[in-house]
């Protein structure tokens, strides 16, 4: 059994992990951006003070680019790229940034999503890399994974869409002073406030994230939610890519997955129904197995890790195509 794809993916993931978490250590460049900025270190409002959840360590990012994977504003020294797609919409909705300024970023993000779909999750995202590392460690011990039933899978699937749209809705609402200023502050970047990356990434750069914020009831509550999510992250030891099943970024990028230009395609005539793709899928996608029509079998949940394609024993049954051109086949 060849494992060329897995090895390639591990290398890409490692490189992306290093670039996204340590990029600002390597290239201490200054950012030129038209968008409003969160100034690190020198707080403009209480929101960014040390001791608040949204305290930003160090500087701005090196490159003015948001990506549909978990690059993060809270990385030490600001990181190489600006942050994730959910962060982009949340902050700019709240700031009521002019559409003219957002347009280049929206275009760039749309192109990235339409081109590669959730390949971002499987190959680029440092959170994904950490989830994979956890699975790898568990397998070293020979322990089994926890099975996720169909109902639980559906529950997680629904939850993530609720998190995504709920967070975006809050970000829009607090742009208008109906809640009052204090509430406004505490609900800013609400998704970041409980995303485990905010707690996980800074320590990699030697920075202590803000573990608790008891400024008011809302920030205390969100601190609690953040801890709960942080704990859930470690369920990744028992369930492969557990966080990815909740992640709102994944939910958003997943909308593009079936229409993306990068596709997994199946030739049903070559399929022997052995079930390997279903059994070995880290996120329990069944579509690759159960779809018996020719053509695209990419699922919204699929992260294009290509495990199915690599493990498929039938030459030519599965293919990865970009714009209809074959890149790799089983």
């Amino acid at each position, binding site marked *: *059994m060849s494992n060329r794809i897995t090895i390639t993916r591990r290398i890409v993931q490692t490189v992306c992990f290093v670039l996204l978490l340590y990029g600002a250590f390597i290239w201490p460049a200054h950012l030129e951006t038209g968008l409003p900025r969160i100034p690190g270190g020198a707080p403009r409002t209480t929101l960014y003070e040390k001791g608040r959840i949204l305290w930003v360590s160090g500087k701005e990012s090196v490159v003015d680019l948001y990506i549909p994977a978990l690059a993060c504003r809270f990385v030490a020294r600001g990181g190489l790229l600006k942050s994730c797609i959910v962060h982009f919409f949340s902050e700019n909705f709240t700031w009521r940034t002019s559409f003219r300024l957002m347009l280049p970023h929206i275009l760039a993000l749309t192109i990235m999503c339409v081109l590669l779909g959730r390949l971002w999750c499987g190959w680029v995202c440092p959170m994904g890399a950490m989830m994979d590392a956890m699975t790898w460690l568990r*397998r070293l011990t*020979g322990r089994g994974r926890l099975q996720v039933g169909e109902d639980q899978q559906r529950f997680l699937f629904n939850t993530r869409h609720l998190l995504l749209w709920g967070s975006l809705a809050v970000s829009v609402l607090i742009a208008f002073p109906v809640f009052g200023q204090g509430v406004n502050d505490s609900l800013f970047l609400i998704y970041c406030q409980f995303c485990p990356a905010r707690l996980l990434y800074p320590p990699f750069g030697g920075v202590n994230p803000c573990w608790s914020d008891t400024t008011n009831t809302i920030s205390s509550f969100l601190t609690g939610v953040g801890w709960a999510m942080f704990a859930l992250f470690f369920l990744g030891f028992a369930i492969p890519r557990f966080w990815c099943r909740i992640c709102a970024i994944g939910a958003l990028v997943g909308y593009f997955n079936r229409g993306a230009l990068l596709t997994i395609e199946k030739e049903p005539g070559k399929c*022997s129904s*052995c079930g*390997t793709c279903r*059994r070995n899928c880290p996120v329990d996608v069944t579509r690759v197995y159960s779809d018996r029509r020719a053509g695209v079998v990419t699922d919204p949940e699929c992260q294009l890790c290509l495990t199915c394609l690599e*493990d*498929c*024993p039938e030459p030519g049954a599965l293919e990865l195509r970009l714009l209809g051109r074959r890149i790799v086949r089983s």
Partner: protein
Amino acid sequence: MSSPAPAELVAWFRDEVTTPRRAAELAEWPGKVIGTYCNFVPEELILALGAVPVRLCAGDLDAIPDGEALLPREVCSVVRSSAGTLQRGGGLAGRADLLVIPTPCDAKKKLGAVVEHLKPVHVLELPPRKDSPAARAFWAEQVRGLLAALERLTGRRLRRRALHGAIALVNRREEAFRRLLRLRQADPPALSGEDFLFVTQASFTADAAAWAEHTEALCAVLEARPARPANGRRVLLTGAPLIWPNHKVVQLLEQAGAAVVADELCSGTQRLYQPVALREVSMRALLDAVAEKAMLPSTCPCFVEGGDRLNRIVDLAREAHVAGVVYHSQRLCPLFEIEAMLVQKELRARAIPLLTLSTDFSREDSGQLRTRIDAFLEMLGDGRA
């Protein structure tokens, strides 16, 4: 460099199938021998427990009268012959410490009941539909039941590492097997259809590692050998299993000048075709993987779903560039007889020529079959486009 004659190349395999060599080897061996029927029995479990699996499905015409002491004549040749081999005793069937009998058809369902006075029997039950959540759960349970029975018999507990090793061994066998399949399917084919059946059926009984070594060596020789001129029309053989000495259909085909370059038989290509690709390595995951591999990709007509076999036949026919398909229908087996009609419908729609031969182990119809085969090959043309 002179290349060895084809007969010499497969001599080891042919001897394994046609001589009592393996029976003699195992007669002195102190461990447990598990007799299996069908490919549904996960051999990995048996190997991991240090026992030896031998597939006992029989093709012996001479054993049928003995089988008729146990079973009515309206049961197919394979099952009557298998029962007869057990009734006679001796050989590998006599050596087996336990028989594991899956239930793909009514005859095999009851085979256990008629031979249990001769040998301990474990019946491995198959679900009617192979891929529903209920069927998968049921089958996983069945495989664990088999494991418990094997553990009791051998007095060992299955270790995760041992199972992992057994899976690797069986995967090695599969890899060599696929290499050989490609050689047989080449144009011109590197070995005959009957020789391929000998190699495959040697794996029924042979030590798994020894079989893999011999097959790898055989592939290396065949790959190095200069291509011989093409002979005859390329055909795909499918349908009911051909088990030595009942090689009648493949022999008649090749004597008539056809080249059987591909097959879809459970005593042929299906036998070692599937590998087990592992990601999770817990005991549960290994058992599930082994169980799934034994049933899910099966193209046995015993399941409600029949699409996989049709798929496979059409794909093989295209991939192996065959001129026609020959369907071996087992007389008295409704499953194969019904499937023959489904295959006919599918192939007709795709304009792939099909010859259906309904027969059993008897040699009386050889002349008649030969005539039909000749006519079919003539219809396919002389092999030159």
